[in-house]
């Protein structure tokens, strides 16, 4: 078995992708300018958030997210042993490297600051969280208020009569700058609580592991998990709509093949109109829900791709007609959680432990709603709005002939968009032709070729020499990367081949069934009842299919992976972070998923 992964400097550029580095901010690619440092670090591919090649603009969220995460560790809370998570792009893929504090004296010196700063957040969590909700909604409102329109032939008379002294071209550029600022601000907010939330969770986790050395990780997750979680709300809204359709007898409309025809049919009756009003009410905000991680402009949002939510409503209607109870048994879920907490508490050896258990669980539960809910507000809702605004802007430039279509804007780096806007604006101002249509026409063609070449490359799971043990707590929590998983990646090249995969025992139970390997949200429709879903990762918006599958296997993610959370919720076995599930398993093969031990076995086929 090899003891290291390739150096980033040993990796070759795929044929046809020459010059890919220029598609990203200059600080993103590995470079000889920092070779000594970059070669000394261990980098892993972040398949949880960026499993695919990033187009130039999409790398914006990558940079904003990682810098924001890092900033809170390093500069706000002074997490004693951890600085940020360094980030690079190699052949279009995201590679991360957690940076620790090496000097024990420095760690020691950070402790009092951490106690003061993190302590403040823990003590005032409820108030600060409420404030956060206000901030995030304000931010979304402001993003919604930005509009991107083609520049007028002549300015409105009011611009003159009100003495505004500035014009539409300036507004357009300012709005783009504002949108990018809001995106960074959004990511600042995203990490305001998250790292501290994980710290409190890890503390409870560590306590449980000491009190019960063999306690399954998922038992701990179950004790902390919320019962009513915003991330489940979009699915709840679909069920509500399905029930309404059946109860008000408009469910017949859903026999129409397309969403447009369903809507047309519903418009024809009062009950149908009432259903559509309820749809509108549910859709804002709950259907600002991405079918992917929300980090790619190509991720489909329910609100904009009605076939997805309508398809789910149709499935739920069919279940209701069969007399299936589709409601989420909130009381039973709550009772089960209380039982688990009660029984572990009872098994503790001393009263002192029971007091500590309750205290730590209490804090973990105070912080956990943020950990569970932020994803909806940031990656789903805010990102949906932002992608929509960006497409509007792309549409403006497409209309001017800069682009072939609105989504071409994502082939520009975020700092190239102002240049294109400047070109558009200045030519408009002068009253002549912009260079853009020819310039970008040629350049985007070249970029498309590069991205296609990059997509055909498969990224190694990691780069450089791995540490003996992975100690950075967030790396383990967020990405599910441990010393063990790294060893497994290293060993995978050697074959093995006994038809079994190892991952996180993420949701208990054992299931056998035919596998269905899918790689993206648009394949969800292929999944048949009773099959075992095998995917690189899953998104919260896939929730409705969890009602019909037998188990889930993912390539990436740990205990807190979405697939893990949803499977625990649905009582389905799940093994996450198998690294090679989608590569090893073929659709139709019978597999056995053991969610208690974290193993997946290919039985036949």
């Amino acid at each position, binding site marked *: 078995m090899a003891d290291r992964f390739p150096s980033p400097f040993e990796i070759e550029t795929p044929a046809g992708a020459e010059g890919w580095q220029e598609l990203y901010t200059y600080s993103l690619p590995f470079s000889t300018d920092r070779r000594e440092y970059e070669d000394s670090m261990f980098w892993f591919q972040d398949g949880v958030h960026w499993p695919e090649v990033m187009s130039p603009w999409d790398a914006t969220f990558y940079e904003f997210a990682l810098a924001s995460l890092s900033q809170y560790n390093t500069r706000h809370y002074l997490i004693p042993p951890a600085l940020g998570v360094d980030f690079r792009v190699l052949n279009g893929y995201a590679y991360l490297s957690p940076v620790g504090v090496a000097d024990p004296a420095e760690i020691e010196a950070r402790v009092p600051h951490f106690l003061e700063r993190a302590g403040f957040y823990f003590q005032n969590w409820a108030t600060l969280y409420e404030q956060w909700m206000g901030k995030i909604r304000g931010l979304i409102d402001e993003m919604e208020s930005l509009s991107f329109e083609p520049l007028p032939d002549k300015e409105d008379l009011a611009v003159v009569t009100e003495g505004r002294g500035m014009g539409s071209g300036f507004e357009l550029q300012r709005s783009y700058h504002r949108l990018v600022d809001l995106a960074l601000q959004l990511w600042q907010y995203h990490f305001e609580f998250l790292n501290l939330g994980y710290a409190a969770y890890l503390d409870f986790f560590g306590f449980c592991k000491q009190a019960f050395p063999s306690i399954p990780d998922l038992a701990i997750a179950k004790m902390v998990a919320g019962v009513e979680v915003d991330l489940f709300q979009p699915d709840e809204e679909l069920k509500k709509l399905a029930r309404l359709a059946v109860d008000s007898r408009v469910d017949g409309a859903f026999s129409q093949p397309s969403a447009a025809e369903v809507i047309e049919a519903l418009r024809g009756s009062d009950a149908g109109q009432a259903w559509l009003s309820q749809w509108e009410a549910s859709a804002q905000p709950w259907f600002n829900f991405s079918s992917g991680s929300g980090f790619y402009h190509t991720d489909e949002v329910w609100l904009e791709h009605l076939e997805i939510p309508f398809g789910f409503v149709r499935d739920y209607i069919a279940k209701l007609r069969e007399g299936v109870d589709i409601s989420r048994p909130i009381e039973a879920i709550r009772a089960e959680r209380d039982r688990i907490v009660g029984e572990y508490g009872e098994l503790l050896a001393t009263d002192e432990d029971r007091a500590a258990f309750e205290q730590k669980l209490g804090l973990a539960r105070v912080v956990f709603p943020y950990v569970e809910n932020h994803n909806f507000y940031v990656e789903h809702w805010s990102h949906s709005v932002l992608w929509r605004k960006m497409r509007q802007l792309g549409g403006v430039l497409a209309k001017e002939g800069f682009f072939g279509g609105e989504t071409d804007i994502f082939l520009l780096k975020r700092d190239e968009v102002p240049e294109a806007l400047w070109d558009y604006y200045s030519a408009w101002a002068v009253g002549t032709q912009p260079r853009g249509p020819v310039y970008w026409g040629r350049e985007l063609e070249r970029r498309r070729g590069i991205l296609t070449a990059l997509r055909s490359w498969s990224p190694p799971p990691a780069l450089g020499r791995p540490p003996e043990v992975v100690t950075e707590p967030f790396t383990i929590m967020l990405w599910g990367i441990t010393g063990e998983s790294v060893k497994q990646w290293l060993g995978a090249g050697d074959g093995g081949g006994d038809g079994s995969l190892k991952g996180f025992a993420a949701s208990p139970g*054992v299931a056998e069934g035919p596998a269905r390997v899918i790689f993206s949200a648009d394949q969800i429709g292929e999944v048949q009842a009773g099959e075992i879903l095998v995917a690189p990762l899953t998104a919260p918006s896939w929730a409705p299919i969890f009602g019909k599958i037998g188990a889930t296997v993912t390539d990436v993610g740990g205990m807190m992976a979405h697939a893990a959370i949803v499977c625990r919720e649905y009582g389905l076995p799940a093994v996450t972070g198998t690294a090679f599930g989608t590569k090893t398993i073929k659709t139709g093969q019978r597999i056995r998923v053991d969610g208690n031990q974290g193993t997946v076995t290919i039985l036949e086929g």
Partner: protein
Amino acid sequence: MSFVCWLDDYDPAQRARLGGKNASLGEMLAAGLPVPPGFAVTVDAYHTVRGHPEVRQAVTGLLDEVDLDDPAALEELSAAIRRRIEQVPLDDAVAAAVRAAYAELCERCTAEAVPVAVRSSATSEDLPDASFAGEHDTYLWVRGPTDLLRHLTRCWSSLFTARAIAYRRERGYDHDVVAMAVGVQQMVRPTASGVAFTLNPRDGDRSQVAVEAAWGFGEGIVSGEVTPDSFLVDKVLGEIVQRTISDKAVEYRLGDGDRVERVEVAADRRTAPSLSDDQVKAVARLARRAERHYRCPQDVEWALDADRPDDQAVTLLQARPETVWSRKAAKPVASVADPMASIVATLVSPLHTRGSSDTPGP
């Protein structure tokens, strides 16, 4: 005065008349634990024999005459007393009561001549039970009323084995300090059997039940001849969290003439799990019930009874307190005094760098 007492009618007030072993079985049944059915032959029955003039005379007379430091003489004395106990005619009422109870047991087990274990269950008003554990005889696979009565008297007479006589003498006890009740309990013919601990024997984790299982009777596991399949079951989630299936080359089965014999395991069964997942969970639940009942970690022996329906097949043979981890003083894991300090410790020294084998991951 009653000579027979059903184990499932056990009344703690009667402990002295039933002996420790019977009392323990009775208690388990009263707690709803699935112990094979049976009855106790009380000390009153024993006294009908012990009080028989011939026996009385033999005991006092012989004991006075013999030099107990001479092993050969002691053996001879023991044999003489035992012969006398086994040969005096059995009190009619005792014989009738035992025959009737056995007939009823056969009926309960829907078997013609149900095989039973006949166990000594010594009792004393002055001594703790443990001080004479293992001193007396047990007979397995006894069938039919005649055989039962014969082994009943042999159990009684086992109060006077050379070892038991010497033991009492060493301790300075009177020879009537103990009396003998006898337990008669249905034999289990197991497809698989084993042990279970209501904690993880590797790390003392009380949230788990460790189950060890092998084909057939438990002899192979006890002697170490068979490496059992081993399972860890989380008590709270009720799920199997670890499973190791071993190569089980031999097993002990019931052969012709009620003889337990050692046989090679057929190739296809050697590496097959000796328990299904549901059976593992059922054993774990059973062990957990015993732990709840006794309010301390238990070490139990169980068997999967081939003669019972699947959902009732797991039977409890014995339960005793676990001793290794339970003796260690419970030390608190954490304190409530400074929660922030604990968070810092978690961050600075994550669990998996503290030398624990359990990392939060695969």
